Protein backbone atom coordinates (compact mmCIF):
# COMPACT_ATOMS: atom_id res chain seq x y z
CA UNK A 1 0.00 0.00 0.00
CA UNK A 2 2.81 2.32 0.77
CA UNK A 3 4.19 1.63 -2.66
CA UNK A 4 0.92 2.57 -4.20
CA UNK A 5 1.06 5.85 -2.41
CA UNK A 6 4.56 6.50 -3.64
CA UNK A 7 3.41 5.80 -7.14
CA UNK A 8 0.53 8.20 -6.93
CA UNK A 9 2.81 10.84 -5.55
CA UNK A 10 5.43 10.51 -8.24
CA UNK A 11 2.76 10.60 -10.88
CA UNK A 12 1.31 13.85 -9.76
CA UNK A 13 4.70 15.40 -9.26
CA UNK A 14 5.03 15.44 -13.03
CA UNK A 15 3.75 18.99 -12.77
CA UNK A 16 0.93 20.99 -14.21
CA UNK A 17 1.16 19.38 -17.60
CA UNK A 18 1.01 15.89 -16.21
CA UNK A 19 0.81 13.25 -18.89
CA UNK A 20 -2.27 11.17 -19.48
CA UNK A 21 -5.53 12.65 -18.29
CA UNK A 22 -5.01 16.13 -19.73
CA UNK A 23 -3.25 19.11 -18.19
CA UNK A 24 -4.29 21.20 -15.22
CA UNK A 25 -6.34 24.27 -15.96
CA UNK A 26 -5.61 25.69 -12.53
CA UNK A 27 -2.74 24.20 -10.63
CA UNK A 28 0.10 24.79 -8.29
CA UNK A 29 3.55 23.44 -8.61
CA UNK A 30 5.92 22.86 -5.76
CA UNK A 31 4.26 25.52 -3.61
CA UNK A 32 5.41 26.11 -0.04
CA UNK A 33 3.64 28.44 2.32
CA UNK A 34 5.14 29.48 5.62
CA UNK A 35 3.70 31.57 8.42
CA UNK A 36 6.81 32.60 10.27
CA UNK A 37 8.48 29.38 11.27
CA UNK A 38 5.37 27.27 10.74
CA UNK A 39 5.12 25.60 7.35
CA UNK A 40 1.48 25.35 6.33
CA UNK A 41 2.21 23.84 2.94
CA UNK A 42 5.38 22.16 1.76
CA UNK A 43 6.22 21.51 -1.89
CA UNK A 44 2.62 20.85 -2.75
CA UNK A 45 1.74 20.21 -6.38
CA UNK A 46 -1.87 19.74 -7.29
CA UNK A 47 -4.47 21.06 -9.66
CA UNK A 48 -7.77 20.76 -11.39
CA UNK A 49 -8.48 19.68 -14.95
CA UNK A 50 -11.19 20.78 -17.36
CA UNK A 51 -14.67 19.91 -16.09
CA UNK A 52 -13.53 18.27 -12.89
CA UNK A 53 -14.68 18.37 -9.31
CA UNK A 54 -11.70 17.88 -7.04
CA UNK A 55 -11.62 17.46 -3.29
CA UNK A 56 -8.75 18.40 -0.99
CA UNK A 57 -8.95 16.49 2.28
CA UNK A 58 -6.89 15.91 5.33
CA UNK A 59 -6.91 16.26 9.09
CA UNK A 60 -6.83 19.58 10.90
CA UNK A 61 -3.76 21.64 10.23
CA UNK A 62 -2.87 19.65 7.14
CA UNK A 63 -2.87 22.80 5.02
CA UNK A 64 -6.09 22.23 3.10
CA UNK A 65 -7.38 25.76 3.35
CA UNK A 66 -3.91 27.09 2.67
CA UNK A 67 -4.09 25.56 -0.79
CA UNK A 68 -7.01 27.78 -1.67
CA UNK A 69 -5.53 30.79 0.08
CA UNK A 70 -2.32 30.36 -1.89
CA UNK A 71 -4.28 30.37 -5.13
CA UNK A 72 -6.16 33.51 -4.11
CA UNK A 73 -2.99 35.31 -3.09
CA UNK A 74 -4.04 35.42 0.55
CA UNK A 75 -1.18 33.28 1.85
CA UNK A 76 2.53 34.08 1.78
CA UNK A 77 3.86 31.76 -0.91
CA UNK A 78 7.51 31.17 -0.07
CA UNK A 79 8.35 29.17 -3.20
CA UNK A 80 6.67 27.60 -6.17
CA UNK A 81 4.05 29.00 -8.46
CA UNK A 82 0.33 28.94 -9.07
CA UNK A 83 -0.66 28.40 -12.72
CA UNK A 84 -3.80 29.38 -14.53
CA UNK A 85 -4.08 28.27 -18.16
CA UNK A 86 -0.32 27.73 -18.45
CA UNK A 87 0.52 31.26 -17.26
CA UNK A 88 1.65 32.10 -13.75
CA UNK A 89 -1.10 33.63 -11.65
CA UNK A 90 0.49 36.59 -9.93
CA UNK A 91 -2.13 39.32 -9.98
CA UNK A 92 -3.40 41.09 -6.87
CA UNK A 93 -6.12 39.33 -4.93
CA UNK A 94 -8.90 41.57 -6.13
CA UNK A 95 -7.98 40.94 -9.77
CA UNK A 96 -8.00 37.15 -9.55
CA UNK A 97 -11.76 36.85 -9.69
CA UNK A 98 -11.67 38.57 -13.08
CA UNK A 99 -9.69 35.61 -14.42
CA UNK A 100 -12.71 33.42 -13.71
CA UNK A 101 -11.63 32.02 -10.36
CA UNK A 102 -14.13 32.56 -7.57
CA UNK A 103 -13.55 31.76 -3.93
CA UNK A 104 -16.14 30.84 -1.31
CA UNK A 105 -14.36 31.30 2.00
CA UNK A 106 -14.60 29.15 5.08
CA UNK A 107 -17.44 30.00 7.43
CA UNK A 108 -19.35 31.65 4.56
CA UNK A 109 -18.13 35.15 5.49
CA UNK A 110 -21.14 36.89 3.98
CA UNK A 111 -21.53 40.63 4.13
CA UNK A 112 -23.98 40.40 6.99
CA UNK A 113 -25.15 44.00 6.84
CA UNK A 114 -26.06 43.81 3.18
CA UNK A 115 -29.22 42.31 1.78
CA UNK A 116 -29.16 39.05 -0.13
CA UNK A 117 -29.49 40.85 -3.42
CA UNK A 118 -26.63 43.17 -2.53
CA UNK A 119 -24.50 40.25 -1.42
CA UNK A 120 -25.03 38.65 -4.80
CA UNK A 121 -24.16 41.89 -6.54
CA UNK A 122 -20.93 42.03 -4.57
CA UNK A 123 -19.99 38.79 -6.28
CA UNK A 124 -19.01 40.85 -9.28
CA UNK A 125 -18.50 44.43 -8.07
CA UNK A 126 -16.28 45.23 -11.03
CA UNK A 127 -19.01 44.43 -13.57
CA UNK A 128 -20.44 47.61 -15.11
CA UNK A 129 -23.00 45.98 -17.37
CA UNK A 130 -26.26 45.91 -15.47
CA UNK A 131 -28.13 43.61 -17.84
CA UNK A 132 -25.37 41.04 -17.59
CA UNK A 133 -25.43 41.28 -13.82
CA UNK A 134 -29.22 40.87 -13.84
CA UNK A 135 -28.86 37.83 -16.07
CA UNK A 136 -26.32 36.21 -13.76
CA UNK A 137 -28.44 36.95 -10.76
CA UNK A 138 -31.41 35.30 -12.43
CA UNK A 139 -29.30 32.24 -13.12
CA UNK A 140 -28.23 32.04 -9.49
CA UNK A 141 -31.75 32.59 -8.23
CA UNK A 142 -33.01 29.92 -10.56
CA UNK A 143 -30.49 27.58 -9.02
CA UNK A 144 -31.45 28.62 -5.47
CA UNK A 145 -35.06 29.87 -5.51
CA UNK A 146 -34.95 30.61 -1.78
CA UNK A 147 -32.58 33.50 -2.51
CA UNK A 148 -35.17 35.05 -4.78
CA UNK A 149 -37.89 34.78 -2.14
CA UNK A 150 -35.77 36.49 0.50
CA UNK A 151 -33.83 38.84 -1.71
CA UNK A 152 -34.55 41.97 0.36
CA UNK A 153 -33.62 40.35 3.69
CA UNK A 154 -30.32 40.91 5.41
CA UNK A 155 -27.87 38.06 4.99
CA UNK A 156 -27.59 37.71 8.76
CA UNK A 157 -31.26 36.78 9.02
CA UNK A 158 -30.87 33.54 7.10
CA UNK A 159 -30.26 30.06 8.42
CA UNK A 160 -26.88 28.40 8.04
CA UNK A 161 -27.89 26.33 5.03
CA UNK A 162 -29.37 29.32 3.24
CA UNK A 163 -26.27 31.34 4.01
CA UNK A 164 -24.20 28.64 2.38
CA UNK A 165 -26.41 28.85 -0.72
CA UNK A 166 -25.91 32.60 -0.75
CA UNK A 167 -22.17 32.17 -0.42
CA UNK A 168 -22.18 29.74 -3.34
CA UNK A 169 -24.38 32.13 -5.29
CA UNK A 170 -22.06 35.05 -4.57
CA UNK A 171 -19.19 32.99 -5.94
CA UNK A 172 -21.20 32.08 -9.03
CA UNK A 173 -22.02 35.73 -9.75
CA UNK A 174 -18.49 36.13 -11.05
CA UNK A 175 -19.43 33.61 -13.74
CA UNK A 176 -16.36 31.62 -12.78
CA UNK A 177 -14.68 28.82 -14.63
CA UNK A 178 -13.30 27.54 -11.36
CA UNK A 179 -15.05 27.66 -8.01
CA UNK A 180 -12.94 27.22 -4.89
CA UNK A 181 -14.93 26.08 -1.88
CA UNK A 182 -13.39 26.18 1.58
CA UNK A 183 -15.16 23.85 4.03
CA UNK A 184 -18.68 24.50 2.71
CA UNK A 185 -20.34 22.22 5.28
CA UNK A 186 -18.51 23.46 8.37
CA UNK A 187 -20.89 24.10 11.24
CA UNK A 188 -23.99 22.96 9.36
CA UNK A 189 -26.51 20.43 10.60
CA UNK A 190 -26.16 16.92 9.13
CA UNK A 191 -29.32 17.08 7.04
CA UNK A 192 -28.18 20.35 5.45
CA UNK A 193 -24.74 18.96 4.71
CA UNK A 194 -26.28 16.58 2.19
CA UNK A 195 -28.06 19.41 0.41
CA UNK A 196 -24.87 21.42 0.19
CA UNK A 197 -23.12 18.53 -1.53
CA UNK A 198 -26.13 18.14 -3.80
CA UNK A 199 -25.89 21.83 -4.72
CA UNK A 200 -22.20 21.57 -5.42
CA UNK A 201 -22.70 18.69 -7.82
CA UNK A 202 -25.58 20.56 -9.45
CA UNK A 203 -23.36 23.54 -10.08
CA UNK A 204 -20.82 21.29 -11.69
CA UNK A 205 -23.38 19.57 -13.90
CA UNK A 206 -25.64 22.45 -14.85
CA UNK A 207 -23.04 25.19 -15.26
CA UNK A 208 -20.02 23.08 -16.14
CA UNK A 209 -17.95 24.88 -13.52
CA UNK A 210 -14.74 23.29 -12.33
CA UNK A 211 -14.83 22.95 -8.55
CA UNK A 212 -12.09 22.48 -6.00
CA UNK A 213 -13.55 21.76 -2.60
CA UNK A 214 -11.73 21.58 0.72
CA UNK A 215 -13.70 19.39 3.04
CA UNK A 216 -13.46 17.55 6.33
CA UNK A 217 -16.64 15.55 5.79
CA UNK A 218 -15.01 12.84 3.73
CA UNK A 219 -17.82 10.39 3.21
CA UNK A 220 -20.12 13.03 1.82
CA UNK A 221 -17.61 14.61 -0.45
CA UNK A 222 -16.31 11.39 -1.94
CA UNK A 223 -19.69 10.84 -3.59
CA UNK A 224 -19.56 14.00 -5.64
CA UNK A 225 -15.93 14.39 -6.71
CA UNK A 226 -14.01 13.02 -9.65
CA UNK A 227 -10.65 13.06 -7.97
CA UNK A 228 -9.24 13.86 -4.59
CA UNK A 229 -6.04 14.83 -2.86
CA UNK A 230 -5.20 13.97 0.71
CA UNK A 231 -2.88 16.29 2.60
CA UNK A 232 -1.06 15.62 5.80
CA UNK A 233 1.09 18.16 7.63
CA UNK A 234 1.42 20.34 4.58
CA UNK A 235 2.31 17.61 2.09
CA UNK A 236 0.26 15.88 -0.57
CA UNK A 237 0.28 12.24 0.55
CA UNK A 238 -2.26 10.80 -1.84
CA UNK A 239 -3.96 11.52 -5.12
CA UNK A 240 -6.64 9.38 -6.76
CA UNK A 241 -10.27 8.73 -7.52
CA UNK A 242 -12.85 8.23 -4.77
CA UNK A 243 -12.75 4.50 -5.47
CA UNK A 244 -9.00 4.47 -4.85
CA UNK A 245 -9.66 6.11 -1.53
CA UNK A 246 -12.35 3.69 -0.53
CA UNK A 247 -10.29 0.67 -1.53
CA UNK A 248 -7.29 1.64 0.59
CA UNK A 249 -6.77 2.34 4.23
CA UNK A 250 -5.29 5.71 3.52
CA UNK A 251 -8.10 7.55 5.27
CA UNK A 252 -7.98 5.76 8.58
CA UNK A 253 -4.24 5.95 8.39
CA UNK A 254 -4.10 9.68 7.94
CA UNK A 255 -7.04 10.58 10.13
CA UNK A 256 -6.88 8.10 12.97
CA UNK A 257 -3.22 7.31 12.95
CA UNK A 258 -1.89 3.91 12.08
CA UNK A 259 -4.40 1.33 13.18
CA UNK A 260 -1.83 -1.38 13.38
CA UNK A 261 1.87 -0.74 13.68
CA UNK A 262 3.24 -0.60 10.16
CA UNK A 263 6.76 0.60 10.81
CA UNK A 264 8.29 -2.50 9.32
CA UNK A 265 6.19 -2.23 6.23
CA UNK A 266 7.26 1.32 5.54
CA UNK A 267 10.94 0.62 5.76
Amino acid at each position, binding site marked *: MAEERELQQSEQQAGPNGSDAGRFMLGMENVSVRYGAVAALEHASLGIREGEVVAVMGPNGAGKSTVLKAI*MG*LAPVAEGQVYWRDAPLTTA*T*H*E*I*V*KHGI*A*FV*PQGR*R*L*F*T*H*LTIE*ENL*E*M*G*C*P*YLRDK*TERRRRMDTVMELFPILHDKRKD*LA*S*QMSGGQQQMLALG*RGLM*ANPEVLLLDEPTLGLAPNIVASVFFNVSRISEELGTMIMVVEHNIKGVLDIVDRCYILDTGRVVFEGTPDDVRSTHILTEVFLGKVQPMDGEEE
Partner: protein
Amino acid sequence: MRHQEVVGGHYEVQNPVVNIVFGLVVAGVVAWALFEILYPRLRGRFSRRSIQGAVGLAGILAGLYTGLLLVYPDNLHLLFGPVAGLAVGVAVALALREGLVRVTSSEDGPMATLVPAIIGLAVGAGAAAYIADRPESGLYLSWAVSCLLAGCVGLGLYRGLYVTLRNRARSPLIMLVASMGILLAISATITIVFESAPRPLPPAFGSGPIEFGGGNIKGFNFFTVGVSLAGFAGLLWLLQRTSFGRSVRAIGDDEDVSKVVGINTTVVIAIVFFIGAAFAAMAGILSGHDTAIQPRMGLLLLLKGWIASVVGGIGNLYGALLGGFALGMVEQFGIWDLAGEWKDVISFVVLILFLSFWPKGVLPRK
Protein backbone atom coordinates in the same frame (compact mmCIF):
# COMPACT_ATOMS: atom_id res chain seq x y z
CA MET B 1 6.44 90.61 15.68
CA ARG B 2 3.73 89.30 13.48
CA HIS B 3 0.95 91.63 12.59
CA GLN B 4 -2.14 91.59 10.55
CA GLU B 5 -0.30 93.48 7.81
CA VAL B 6 2.41 90.88 7.63
CA VAL B 7 0.07 88.05 6.93
CA GLY B 8 -1.96 90.12 4.50
CA GLY B 9 -5.55 91.13 4.72
CA HIS B 10 -8.03 89.88 7.22
CA TYR B 11 -9.32 87.06 5.08
CA GLU B 12 -6.62 86.30 2.61
CA VAL B 13 -3.62 84.60 3.98
CA GLN B 14 -0.70 84.52 1.66
CA ASN B 15 1.97 82.19 2.85
CA PRO B 16 4.17 80.73 0.13
CA VAL B 17 5.07 77.72 2.26
CA VAL B 18 1.42 76.82 2.72
CA ASN B 19 0.73 77.23 -0.97
CA ILE B 20 3.68 75.06 -1.91
CA VAL B 21 2.66 72.36 0.57
CA PHE B 22 -0.89 72.28 -0.74
CA GLY B 23 0.42 72.23 -4.30
CA LEU B 24 2.68 69.29 -3.53
CA VAL B 25 -0.08 67.37 -1.81
CA VAL B 26 -2.43 67.91 -4.73
CA ALA B 27 0.26 66.93 -7.22
CA GLY B 28 0.94 63.70 -5.34
CA VAL B 29 -2.69 62.82 -4.93
CA VAL B 30 -3.55 63.50 -8.55
CA ALA B 31 -0.60 61.46 -9.75
CA TRP B 32 -1.44 58.53 -7.49
CA ALA B 33 -5.14 58.58 -8.33
CA LEU B 34 -4.48 58.77 -12.06
CA PHE B 35 -1.98 55.96 -11.79
CA GLU B 36 -4.43 53.72 -9.93
CA ILE B 37 -7.10 54.43 -12.52
CA LEU B 38 -5.03 54.29 -15.68
CA TYR B 39 -2.43 51.65 -14.98
CA PRO B 40 -4.69 48.57 -15.12
CA ARG B 41 -6.30 49.86 -18.33
CA LEU B 42 -3.24 51.02 -20.18
CA ARG B 43 -0.63 48.51 -19.11
CA GLY B 44 -1.31 46.43 -22.20
CA ARG B 45 -0.41 49.27 -24.51
CA PHE B 46 2.26 51.29 -22.73
CA SER B 47 5.18 50.46 -20.50
CA ARG B 48 4.93 51.11 -16.79
CA ARG B 49 7.57 53.81 -17.04
CA SER B 50 5.79 55.85 -19.68
CA ILE B 51 2.50 55.67 -17.78
CA GLN B 52 4.32 56.82 -14.67
CA GLY B 53 5.86 59.68 -16.61
CA ALA B 54 2.57 60.88 -18.04
CA VAL B 55 0.84 60.56 -14.71
CA GLY B 56 3.66 62.41 -12.98
CA LEU B 57 3.39 65.23 -15.50
CA ALA B 58 -0.35 65.48 -14.94
CA GLY B 59 0.27 65.59 -11.20
CA ILE B 60 2.83 68.39 -11.53
CA LEU B 61 0.42 70.40 -13.68
CA ALA B 62 -2.35 69.92 -11.14
CA GLY B 63 -0.03 71.01 -8.35
CA LEU B 64 1.03 74.13 -10.24
CA TYR B 65 -2.58 74.96 -10.96
CA THR B 66 -3.42 74.60 -7.28
CA GLY B 67 -0.57 76.89 -6.39
CA LEU B 68 -1.84 79.43 -8.92
CA LEU B 69 -5.34 79.26 -7.42
CA LEU B 70 -4.01 79.84 -3.95
CA VAL B 71 -1.73 82.69 -4.96
CA TYR B 72 -4.50 84.62 -6.69
CA PRO B 73 -7.59 84.02 -4.58
CA ASP B 74 -9.11 87.30 -5.78
CA ASN B 75 -9.35 85.94 -9.28
CA LEU B 76 -10.75 82.63 -8.16
CA HIS B 77 -13.75 82.97 -10.45
CA LEU B 78 -11.49 83.39 -13.46
CA LEU B 79 -9.05 80.64 -12.55
CA PHE B 80 -11.42 78.09 -11.15
CA GLY B 81 -14.42 78.85 -13.38
CA PRO B 82 -13.23 76.91 -16.44
CA VAL B 83 -12.42 73.87 -14.33
CA ALA B 84 -15.77 74.00 -12.62
CA GLY B 85 -17.37 74.31 -16.06
CA LEU B 86 -15.36 71.35 -17.31
CA ALA B 87 -16.47 69.27 -14.33
CA VAL B 88 -20.10 70.18 -14.97
CA GLY B 89 -19.67 69.31 -18.63
CA VAL B 90 -18.12 65.91 -17.95
CA ALA B 91 -20.79 65.08 -15.38
CA VAL B 92 -23.57 66.02 -17.81
CA ALA B 93 -21.96 64.03 -20.61
CA LEU B 94 -21.53 60.94 -18.43
CA ALA B 95 -25.08 61.11 -17.15
CA LEU B 96 -26.46 61.50 -20.66
CA ARG B 97 -24.35 58.67 -21.99
CA GLU B 98 -25.58 56.37 -19.27
CA GLY B 99 -29.15 57.24 -20.24
CA LEU B 100 -28.50 56.82 -23.95
CA VAL B 101 -26.83 53.47 -23.42
CA ARG B 102 -29.83 52.29 -21.48
CA VAL B 103 -32.25 53.53 -24.16
CA THR B 104 -30.38 52.32 -27.19
CA SER B 105 -28.63 49.46 -25.35
CA SER B 106 -25.65 49.77 -27.63
CA GLU B 107 -22.63 50.87 -25.74
CA ASP B 108 -20.18 51.84 -28.43
CA GLY B 109 -22.48 53.48 -30.86
CA PRO B 110 -21.17 56.86 -31.96
CA MET B 111 -24.44 58.44 -30.90
CA ALA B 112 -24.00 57.31 -27.35
CA THR B 113 -20.69 59.10 -27.07
CA LEU B 114 -21.06 62.05 -29.39
CA VAL B 115 -24.43 63.50 -28.38
CA PRO B 116 -23.68 63.61 -24.64
CA ALA B 117 -20.23 64.98 -25.33
CA ILE B 118 -21.58 67.90 -27.33
CA ILE B 119 -24.35 68.68 -24.85
CA GLY B 120 -21.94 68.34 -21.95
CA LEU B 121 -19.47 70.66 -23.65
CA ALA B 122 -22.16 73.27 -24.18
CA VAL B 123 -23.41 73.10 -20.60
CA GLY B 124 -19.86 73.20 -19.26
CA ALA B 125 -18.95 76.21 -21.36
CA GLY B 126 -22.13 77.94 -20.22
CA ALA B 127 -21.31 77.23 -16.59
CA ALA B 128 -17.77 78.51 -17.03
CA ALA B 129 -18.96 81.71 -18.68
CA TYR B 130 -21.54 82.23 -15.97
CA ILE B 131 -19.02 81.86 -13.18
CA ALA B 132 -16.34 83.93 -14.88
CA ASP B 133 -18.79 86.80 -15.18
CA ARG B 134 -19.37 87.16 -11.46
CA PRO B 135 -16.56 88.06 -9.12
CA GLU B 136 -18.87 87.69 -6.12
CA SER B 137 -19.15 83.99 -6.85
CA GLY B 138 -15.51 83.77 -5.72
CA LEU B 139 -16.62 83.06 -2.18
CA TYR B 140 -18.69 80.05 -3.11
CA LEU B 141 -16.02 78.79 -5.46
CA SER B 142 -13.58 79.08 -2.58
CA TRP B 143 -15.79 76.64 -0.69
CA ALA B 144 -15.32 74.17 -3.49
CA VAL B 145 -11.57 74.75 -3.60
CA SER B 146 -11.31 74.35 0.18
CA CYS B 147 -13.26 71.11 0.17
CA LEU B 148 -11.19 69.74 -2.69
CA LEU B 149 -7.97 70.74 -0.96
CA ALA B 150 -9.08 69.16 2.31
CA GLY B 151 -10.06 66.03 0.42
CA CYS B 152 -6.65 65.92 -1.24
CA VAL B 153 -4.90 66.38 2.11
CA GLY B 154 -7.02 63.57 3.57
CA LEU B 155 -6.20 61.36 0.63
CA GLY B 156 -2.52 62.26 0.88
CA LEU B 157 -2.49 61.35 4.56
CA TYR B 158 -4.22 58.07 3.79
CA ARG B 159 -1.81 57.15 1.02
CA GLY B 160 1.30 58.47 2.67
CA LEU B 161 0.70 57.40 6.23
CA TYR B 162 -2.27 55.22 6.98
CA VAL B 163 -1.51 52.60 4.33
CA THR B 164 2.00 52.23 5.73
CA LEU B 165 0.81 52.26 9.31
CA ARG B 166 -1.92 49.74 8.65
CA ASN B 167 0.58 47.31 7.26
CA ARG B 168 2.83 47.64 10.29
CA ALA B 169 0.43 48.39 13.09
CA ARG B 170 -0.04 45.73 15.68
CA SER B 171 -2.79 47.53 17.53
CA PRO B 172 -5.40 50.21 16.84
CA LEU B 173 -3.59 52.42 19.36
CA ILE B 174 -0.73 53.04 16.93
CA MET B 175 -3.11 54.59 14.44
CA LEU B 176 -4.67 56.59 17.22
CA VAL B 177 -1.37 57.94 18.51
CA ALA B 178 -0.26 58.77 14.98
CA SER B 179 -3.53 60.64 14.51
CA MET B 180 -2.83 62.55 17.71
CA GLY B 181 0.58 63.45 16.33
CA ILE B 182 -1.00 64.72 13.14
CA LEU B 183 -3.55 66.65 15.16
CA LEU B 184 -0.84 68.31 17.26
CA ALA B 185 1.24 69.19 14.22
CA ILE B 186 -1.60 70.46 12.06
CA SER B 187 -3.35 72.51 14.74
CA ALA B 188 -0.06 74.14 15.70
CA THR B 189 0.83 74.78 12.06
CA ILE B 190 -2.50 76.43 11.50
CA THR B 191 -1.92 78.56 14.57
CA ILE B 192 1.46 79.66 13.26
CA VAL B 193 0.18 80.47 9.80
CA PHE B 194 -3.23 81.92 10.61
CA GLU B 195 -2.78 83.04 14.25
CA SER B 196 -4.77 81.60 17.10
CA ALA B 197 -7.33 84.37 17.50
CA PRO B 198 -10.81 83.52 16.22
CA ARG B 199 -11.58 85.25 12.97
CA PRO B 200 -14.91 85.56 11.22
CA LEU B 201 -15.44 84.53 7.64
CA PRO B 202 -16.76 87.12 5.19
CA PRO B 203 -20.53 87.48 5.10
CA ALA B 204 -22.28 85.03 2.86
CA PHE B 205 -25.87 85.32 1.73
CA GLY B 206 -28.50 85.36 4.41
CA SER B 207 -26.14 86.53 7.12
CA GLY B 208 -28.63 89.09 8.25
CA PRO B 209 -31.07 88.09 10.96
CA ILE B 210 -34.54 86.96 10.04
CA GLU B 211 -37.51 87.30 12.33
CA PHE B 212 -38.75 83.81 12.91
CA GLY B 213 -41.31 82.74 15.46
CA GLY B 214 -40.49 85.59 17.77
CA GLY B 215 -36.72 85.05 17.69
CA ASN B 216 -33.96 86.18 15.40
CA ILE B 217 -32.41 83.46 13.29
CA LYS B 218 -29.76 83.89 10.66
CA GLY B 219 -30.92 82.82 7.24
CA PHE B 220 -27.56 81.14 6.90
CA ASN B 221 -28.49 78.71 9.65
CA PHE B 222 -31.30 77.40 7.49
CA PHE B 223 -28.81 77.00 4.71
CA THR B 224 -26.50 75.08 7.07
CA VAL B 225 -29.29 72.74 8.08
CA GLY B 226 -30.22 72.33 4.44
CA VAL B 227 -26.67 71.53 3.41
CA SER B 228 -26.29 69.04 6.26
CA LEU B 229 -29.49 67.26 5.33
CA ALA B 230 -28.57 67.30 1.65
CA GLY B 231 -25.13 65.95 2.49
CA PHE B 232 -26.64 63.23 4.61
CA ALA B 233 -29.13 62.33 1.91
CA GLY B 234 -26.32 62.26 -0.62
CA LEU B 235 -24.24 59.97 1.57
CA LEU B 236 -27.21 57.74 2.14
CA TRP B 237 -27.89 57.54 -1.56
CA LEU B 238 -24.24 56.84 -2.24
CA LEU B 239 -24.06 54.08 0.35
CA GLN B 240 -27.40 52.43 -0.30
CA ARG B 241 -27.96 52.80 -4.00
CA THR B 242 -24.66 52.84 -5.79
CA SER B 243 -22.28 50.02 -6.51
CA PHE B 244 -19.53 52.06 -4.85
CA GLY B 245 -21.60 52.33 -1.67
CA ARG B 246 -22.20 48.62 -1.60
CA SER B 247 -18.46 48.08 -1.92
CA VAL B 248 -17.87 50.41 1.02
CA ARG B 249 -20.35 48.53 3.16
CA ALA B 250 -18.90 45.22 2.06
CA ILE B 251 -15.43 46.35 3.12
CA GLY B 252 -16.85 47.46 6.44
CA ASP B 253 -18.22 43.96 6.90
CA ASP B 254 -15.25 41.91 5.82
CA GLU B 255 -12.21 43.39 4.16
CA ASP B 256 -10.50 40.14 3.17
CA VAL B 257 -13.54 38.72 1.46
CA SER B 258 -14.08 42.04 -0.29
CA LYS B 259 -10.70 41.61 -1.92
CA VAL B 260 -11.55 38.06 -2.87
CA VAL B 261 -14.74 39.00 -4.65
CA GLY B 262 -12.89 41.60 -6.66
CA ILE B 263 -13.22 44.94 -4.89
CA ASN B 264 -10.13 47.12 -5.16
CA THR B 265 -10.16 47.91 -1.46
CA THR B 266 -7.26 50.37 -1.57
CA VAL B 267 -9.01 52.65 -4.01
CA VAL B 268 -12.41 52.40 -2.33
CA ILE B 269 -10.99 53.27 1.08
CA ALA B 270 -9.03 56.13 -0.48
CA ILE B 271 -12.20 57.60 -1.94
CA VAL B 272 -13.89 57.27 1.44
CA PHE B 273 -11.04 59.23 3.00
CA PHE B 274 -11.40 61.89 0.33
CA ILE B 275 -15.13 62.22 0.86
CA GLY B 276 -14.73 62.24 4.63
CA ALA B 277 -12.14 65.01 4.57
CA ALA B 278 -14.17 67.09 2.09
CA PHE B 279 -17.29 66.73 4.26
CA ALA B 280 -15.34 67.75 7.35
CA ALA B 281 -14.06 70.81 5.50
CA MET B 282 -17.59 71.76 4.49
CA ALA B 283 -18.70 71.43 8.12
CA GLY B 284 -15.84 73.69 9.17
CA ILE B 285 -16.72 76.28 6.56
CA LEU B 286 -20.37 76.33 7.53
CA SER B 287 -19.71 76.66 11.23
CA GLY B 288 -17.05 79.27 10.40
CA HIS B 289 -19.64 81.38 8.62
CA ASP B 290 -21.95 80.94 11.56
CA THR B 291 -19.49 82.00 14.26
CA ALA B 292 -15.79 82.25 13.50
CA ILE B 293 -12.90 80.01 12.64
CA GLN B 294 -10.00 79.19 14.93
CA PRO B 295 -7.24 76.59 14.81
CA ARG B 296 -8.56 74.33 17.54
CA MET B 297 -12.19 74.27 16.56
CA GLY B 298 -11.99 70.75 15.24
CA LEU B 299 -11.05 68.45 18.08
CA LEU B 300 -14.09 68.85 20.27
CA LEU B 301 -16.43 68.67 17.28
CA LEU B 302 -14.71 65.47 16.22
CA LEU B 303 -15.11 63.95 19.67
CA LYS B 304 -18.76 64.94 19.65
CA GLY B 305 -19.14 63.15 16.35
CA TRP B 306 -17.56 60.08 17.88
CA ILE B 307 -19.97 60.28 20.82
CA ALA B 308 -22.91 60.69 18.48
CA SER B 309 -21.94 57.54 16.63
CA VAL B 310 -21.54 55.62 19.90
CA VAL B 311 -24.89 56.82 21.17
CA GLY B 312 -26.57 56.04 17.89
CA GLY B 313 -24.84 52.73 17.39
CA ILE B 314 -21.42 52.39 15.77
CA GLY B 315 -21.52 51.64 12.09
CA ASN B 316 -25.12 52.66 11.60
CA LEU B 317 -25.62 55.77 9.51
CA TYR B 318 -29.15 56.43 10.73
CA GLY B 319 -27.89 55.84 14.24
CA ALA B 320 -25.22 58.51 13.77
CA LEU B 321 -27.83 60.97 12.59
CA LEU B 322 -30.15 60.11 15.45
CA GLY B 323 -27.29 60.22 17.96
CA GLY B 324 -26.07 63.57 16.67
CA PHE B 325 -29.55 65.03 16.83
CA ALA B 326 -30.23 63.66 20.32
CA LEU B 327 -26.87 64.86 21.57
CA GLY B 328 -27.48 68.32 20.14
CA MET B 329 -30.87 68.51 21.82
CA VAL B 330 -29.54 67.33 25.17
CA GLU B 331 -26.65 69.77 24.97
CA GLN B 332 -28.74 72.74 23.94
CA PHE B 333 -31.60 72.35 26.35
CA GLY B 334 -29.91 70.52 29.15
CA ILE B 335 -32.19 67.84 30.47
CA TRP B 336 -31.80 68.96 34.05
CA ASP B 337 -32.10 72.63 33.32
CA LEU B 338 -28.36 73.12 33.51
CA ALA B 339 -26.75 76.14 31.98
CA GLY B 340 -25.13 75.97 28.56
CA GLU B 341 -21.58 75.90 29.88
CA TRP B 342 -22.08 72.33 31.08
CA LYS B 343 -22.93 70.98 27.66
CA ASP B 344 -19.58 69.29 27.09
CA VAL B 345 -19.85 67.62 30.45
CA ILE B 346 -23.33 66.41 29.58
CA SER B 347 -22.10 64.97 26.29
CA PHE B 348 -19.33 63.00 27.87
CA VAL B 349 -21.41 61.82 30.79
CA VAL B 350 -23.91 60.57 28.23
CA LEU B 351 -21.05 58.84 26.42
CA ILE B 352 -19.75 57.11 29.52
CA LEU B 353 -23.25 56.06 30.53
CA PHE B 354 -23.90 54.63 27.10
CA LEU B 355 -20.59 52.79 26.92
CA SER B 356 -21.15 51.34 30.38
CA PHE B 357 -24.73 50.25 30.09
CA TRP B 358 -25.67 50.32 26.45
CA PRO B 359 -22.47 49.87 24.46
CA LYS B 360 -24.30 48.97 21.26
CA GLY B 361 -26.13 52.27 21.08
CA VAL B 362 -29.74 53.06 20.32
CA LEU B 363 -29.76 51.57 16.85
CA PRO B 364 -27.25 48.74 16.92
CA ARG B 365 -26.07 47.14 13.71
CA LYS B 366 -28.01 44.03 13.08
